[in-house]
């Protein structure tokens, strides 16, 4: 039965939440304009109904996903019957509609907090909130007015979206299963990364609303105090979300790192940088009343950049230039309209009120912390500008083409090179400034004393830097500068931290965050700047006879069971493995019988873990047939070894996708992924027949082999034989280069017919079949087929000190939390 009721209720909630958002926006506008308590009352009721209906939409969407209602297109295209509940949560926000809903959800939560805590600001702030909500809800409205599609509803029925003949025959047809969640997203980080990121997105609306309200209600400086803790909270969650995404990319994708300067990554990184800049200028205001204008610009720009990044990633304008933008739902016009509305509204208000905003004409002196912090905010903004400019190349192309100018601008050929060349200098600047800025922040200094005070940290930093450089062999000038400025930032901020810890540790947010940032910069410098391809082989070969230039190959070819030397290791590829749900470890596929349902298999034999039986013979188990793991053993010269399991997914959506396997240690990670694997469907040679006697040596594919004996068996692949059946298993030993292998082909007689079950060995590329048994001669006739041996092509990269990046991230988050709590308490004090 098609569950139309749920969808109708869901859609009704969407419409109510849209209407109430508009009603709330209008009433809050009136309330602010007329200073009317009645209007405010109406507005508040509208917003409360809005909250309830948004929660209703969320509940209905989760309900239809949880109960596998594949008659709904959203459920069918993002979920499947076999997903555990936490991946059904990921399915919820995998699509555009669901992720908009997630964003809307966080806005209503934040909105509720605003109404409850900021009575004096309620009307103007909630006007902005409601206006943004109306726009966001309209993205999932799914209404068509005279050929104009407004939003895309998550409650569309599969039959209304897809033209399949089956729906003409039976409109009530319900697909048996959904097409599932993209396997790349079936990762625990993808359960928590999107909610965190969208909470960060949502949080940027708070300082924006305060800034706009400040302009509108002529409270041009009062808005800063309540906005600061929210800006800090937004920066923390957005930063955490970005880094969770980076960590996911590092673990799951194969581009060799955690950050690829992809447009989608850049699009959220830029607002974050600007927001951090805005926080710093707001703190300058709190210190000495300056930088209000800059604060307005940066806080407003942050939110506009969030809207811009939404436009970039969801309008389809990035096209081929990004690996992970959303599918185009044909809503780019709508997105563009919102972007323009908010940009124009902000610019209009800023221009109108510009002269009311105070600006102090105090003398700028380099002995003030404010000066250094301002420079810091400027560096952050320039850094953001440098990132957003090339990221927008597809937008420039599109604008120019629309006004009739043909362009052929392409994104930079080597994105990572391109961005890091600039960004490393911004990084150096930021590191130095955090050291100086924190220093002056806590200490007013006389001109003469500066050199005295700075001498110690500079000397300590130089000593440490020299030691580190000597040990790690850094050569590049910009690398050297980044390292020493990072160390300077850590030393200088640690000194501040030490002093504060004896006075009031609650004030240490700035020092702690800056130590975190410096650690992150050093971690990035080492893990990216000094990452080393260790699968490099200097082959001395050239491209071809046409081009004699020598090239190095960055990959190595590993045939199964043939060890190859690489860097400090000996590598051996042991063969393909699968993972089974619910039990740890990796298994060979031939330990199981496959079933008709491709997600299930049964165990051929008991599987032991130590002495414990984890799986009994015949148990039905669940697994993901898309994933294959390639077991590679790394052996060091001293004999110690470790296993890595790089993965390949045959993903129906994205083709073949490889994911790395990472050996983590305190000082470095060894990151390994397969580049190419042999085709799993082998082409076998024609059968070669050979009569062999028991115990006699013979050759199979140049390997010495012996038939060691026969064995009567009572069951085949766990299925007992029928009466009158006779089955024999031949035991054949093949002497490989490093070990012996045993093959056991089966010969079965039933009703005078012979059935032959061959046995094969992947490592050797050999398949043996017992064609005939000659009992009086103690001999048998073997059918021999050979094939290409299994192989993988692999790339391995060493990433030194990557843990500094993750440790730095945690410290930064702690710093943000300390600062957020401190600034939130200041509001309460009034």
């Amino acid at each position, binding site marked *: 039965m098609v569950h139309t009721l749920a969808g109708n209720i869901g859609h009704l909630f969407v419409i109510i939440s849209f209407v109430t958002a508009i009603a709330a926006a209008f009433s809050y506008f009136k309330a602010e304009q007329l200073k009317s308590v009645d209007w405010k009352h109406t507005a508040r009721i509208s917003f409360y109904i809005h909250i309830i209906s948004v929660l209703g939409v969320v509940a209905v969407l989760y309900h239809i996903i949880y109960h596998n209602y594949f008659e709904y297109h959203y459920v069918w*295209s993002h979920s499947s019957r076999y997903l555990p509940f936490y991946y059904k949560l990921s399915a919820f926000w995998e699509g555009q509609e669901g992720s908009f809903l997630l964003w809307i959800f966080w806005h209503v939560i934040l909105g509720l907090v605003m109404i409850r805590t900021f009575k004096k600001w309620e009307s103007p702030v909630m006007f902005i909130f409601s206006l943004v909500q109306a726009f966001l809800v309209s993205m999932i409205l799914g209404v068509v007015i005279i050929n104009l599609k407004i939003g895309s509803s998550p409650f569309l029925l*599969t039959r209304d979206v*897809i*033209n*399949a003949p*089956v729906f003409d025959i039976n409109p009530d047809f319900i*697909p*048996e299963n959904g*097409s599932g969640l993209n396997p790349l997203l079936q990762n625990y980080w993808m359960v928590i990364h999107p909610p965190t990121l969208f909470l960060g997105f949502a949080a940027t609306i708070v300082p924006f609303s305060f800034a706009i309200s400040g302009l509108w209600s002529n409270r041009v400086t009062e808005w800063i105090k309540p906005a600061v803790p929210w800006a800090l909270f937004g920066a923390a969650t957005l930063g955490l979300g970005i880094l969770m995404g980076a960590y996911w990319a590092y673990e799951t994708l194969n581009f060799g790192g955690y950050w690829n300067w992809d447009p989608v990554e850049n699009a959220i990184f830029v607002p974050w940088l600007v927001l951090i800049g805005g926080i710093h200028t707001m703190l300058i205001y709190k210190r000495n009343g300056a930088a209000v204008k800059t604060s307005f610009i940066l806080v407003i720009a942050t939110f506009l950049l969030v809207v811009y990044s939404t436009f970039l990633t969801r309008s389809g304008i990035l096209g*081929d230039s990004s690996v992970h933008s959303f599918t185009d739902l044909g809503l780019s016009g709508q997105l563009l309209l919102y972007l323009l509305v908010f940009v124009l509204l902000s610019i209009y208000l800023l221009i109108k009120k510009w002269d009311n905003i105070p600006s102090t004409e105090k*003398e*700028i002196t380099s002995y003030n912390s404010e000066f250094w912090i301002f420079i810091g905010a*400027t560096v952050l903004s*320039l850094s953001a*500008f*440098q990132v957003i*400019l*090339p990221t927008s*190349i597809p937008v420039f192309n599109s604008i120019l083409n629309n006004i009739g100018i043909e362009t*052929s*601008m*392409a*994104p*930079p*050929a*080597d994105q990572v090179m*391109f961005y890091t060349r*600039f960004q490393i200098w911004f990084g150096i600047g930021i590191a130095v400034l955090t050291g100086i800025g924190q220093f002056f922040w806590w200490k007013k200094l006389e001109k003469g004393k500066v050199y005295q005070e700075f001498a110690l940290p500079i000397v300590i930093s130089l000593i440490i830097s020299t030691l580190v450089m000597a040990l790690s062999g850094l050569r590049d000038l910009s690398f050297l500068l980044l390292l020493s400025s990072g160390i300077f930032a850590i030393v200088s901020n640690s000194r501040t931290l030490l002093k504060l810890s004896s006075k009031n540790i609650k004030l240490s947010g700035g020092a702690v965050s800056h130590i975190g940032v410096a650690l992150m910069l050093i971690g990035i410098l080492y893990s990216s700047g000094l990452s080393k391809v260790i699968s490099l082989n200097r*082959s001395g070969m050239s*491209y*071809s006879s*046409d*081009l004699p*230039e020598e*090239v190095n*190959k*960055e*990959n*190595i*070819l590993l045939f199964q069971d043939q060890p190859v030397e690489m860097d400090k290791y000996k590598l051996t590829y042991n063969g393909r493995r699968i993972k089974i749900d619910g039990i740890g470890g990796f298994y060979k596929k031939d330990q199981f019988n496959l079933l008709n349902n491709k997600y299930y298999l049964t165990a051929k034999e008991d599987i032991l873990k130590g002495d414990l039986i984890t799986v009994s013979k015949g148990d039905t188990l669940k697994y993901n047939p898309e994933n294959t793991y390639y077991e590679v053993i790394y052996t060091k010269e001293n004999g110690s070894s470790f296993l890595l399991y790089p993965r390949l997914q045959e993903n*129906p*959506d994205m*083709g*073949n996708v490889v994911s790395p396997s990472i050996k983590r240690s305190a000082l470095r990670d060894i990151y390994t992924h397969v*580049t*190419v694997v042999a085709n799993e469907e082998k082409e076998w040679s024609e059968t070669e027949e050979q009569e062999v006697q028991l115990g006699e040596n013979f050759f199979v594919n140049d390997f010495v082999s012996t038939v060691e004996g026969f064995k009567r068996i009572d069951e085949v692949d766990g299925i007992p034989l029928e009466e009158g059946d006779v089955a024999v298993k031949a035991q054949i030993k093949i002497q490989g280069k490093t070990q012996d292998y045993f093959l056991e082909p089966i010969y079965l007689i039933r009703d005078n017919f012979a059935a032959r079950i061959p046995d094969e060995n992947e490592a050797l590329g050999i398949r043996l079949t017992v064609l005939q048994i000659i009992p009086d001669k103690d001999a048998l006739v073997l059918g021999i087929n050979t094939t290409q041996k299994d*192989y993988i*092509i692999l790339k391995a990269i060493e990433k030194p000190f990557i843990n500094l990046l993750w440790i730095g991230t945690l410290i930064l988050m702690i710093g943000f939390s300390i600062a957020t709590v401190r600034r939130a308490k200041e509001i309460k004090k009034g």
Partner: protein
Amino acid sequence: MKKTHIFGIIIIAIAVMIIIITAGDASTYVTFSEAMKMAAEGNNKKIHVVGQLKKDGEGNVVGLEVTEDKLSVSFMMIDNENIEQKIYYNEPMPPDLQRSEQVVVIGSFREDVFVADKILLKCPSKYEEEEIKL
């Protein structure tokens, strides 16, 4: 002149510098003939060329060669002006190369051959969402 003005001028100067360098470093979409002209003029900038693999009448890819060690590949590509060009790629053959509908190679000419540093493929989706499995 006030200090704030000097500060402003420095910022604008840096921003302008970023714009100029970005414009200079941005790659371009060109055809093989334009790329060859650029190479002849000594311009070694990395460029994007869009095209397809060379195929025979029956749709089989021709001119694709994988080296014996399987670690690099060369193939024939036809750009949008129907010009044929041999491409060298010093990486193992991307698994989806042969079934790609469109290829974008990013690289530059060296001598007479085009060396690709990066290849972007557009492939037909293996399953079309329009078909529902029964």
